[in-house]
């Protein structure tokens, strides 16, 4: 599991790669939590290099979504492959999250 973070046109862009399982999820929660705690509230998470996510990862995402909702922030996701999309779909997360195919589309939507 590794996390890369950059700021692009005022939007916090986070790349997740590898596996988010019960072992790695707490680290992801902490990293992204830090960004939100700094008061940043436009966030895009790019999943294109993510291979696997379990409920421990979904837990992190819903936590982030709640925090950003509370601070009137915006969150978008992009690059989910079919396996990960299935997990989102079953969990009802496709209705909760704004999900885009590509980073460009997601950035454009967040930029508005």
């Amino acid at each position, binding site marked *: 599991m590794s996390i890369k973070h950059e700021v692009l046109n005022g939007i916090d862009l986070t790349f997740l790669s590898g596996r988010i399982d019960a*072992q790695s999820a707490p680290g992801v929660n902490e990293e992204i939590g830090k960004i939100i705690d700094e008061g940043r509230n436009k966030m895009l998470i790019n999943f294109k290099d993510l291979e*696997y996510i*379990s*409920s421990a990862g979904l837990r992190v995402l819903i*936590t982030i979504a*709640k925090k950003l*909702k509370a601070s009137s922030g915006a969150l978008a996701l992009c690059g989910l492959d079919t*396996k990960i999309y299935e997990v989102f779909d*079953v969990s009802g997360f496709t*209705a909760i999250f704004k999900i885009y195919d590509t980073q460009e589309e997601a950035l454009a939507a967040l930029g508005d």
Partner: protein
Amino acid sequence: MDKTLTLPATLDNLESFMALGRDAAVSCGMDDGAVHQVELALEEVLVNVINYAYASSPDQAPEQDQTPAQETDQPVELCCTCEDDHSLTITITDRGKAFDPLDKPDPDTNLSVEDRAIGGLGIFLAKHMMDKITYERRRDKNILTLVKNNKE
């Protein structure tokens, strides 16, 4: 033949169990998608054993316990059997408190972000990913059996 692994129920051992489960699914002829579904269900079930089965009070995470599982007798056993290449049967056995995960009602997946609980998706996902899950309490053991059929 059966592939089995018994180790203390700790997060440190999760990856060893996952490696065995993955290997069993692959060598049983599952395609990528099915291997992924098996992995996910297996992780969910194992993590629940790790987090809850041996916790001293209900819903108490094991971090609050005094003794790490290595030193006490808190095993979890994984057994994977490929039935003639047409299905994979996985049993997860622990000696923790009696708990039937199939009794838990499914979460409401239609709630808004604000109303959704953090967590509560593990068992639900496991059920979705497998073709059959059965629970059995035998003496002091919880035995959860997951079955995944090979697509023809």
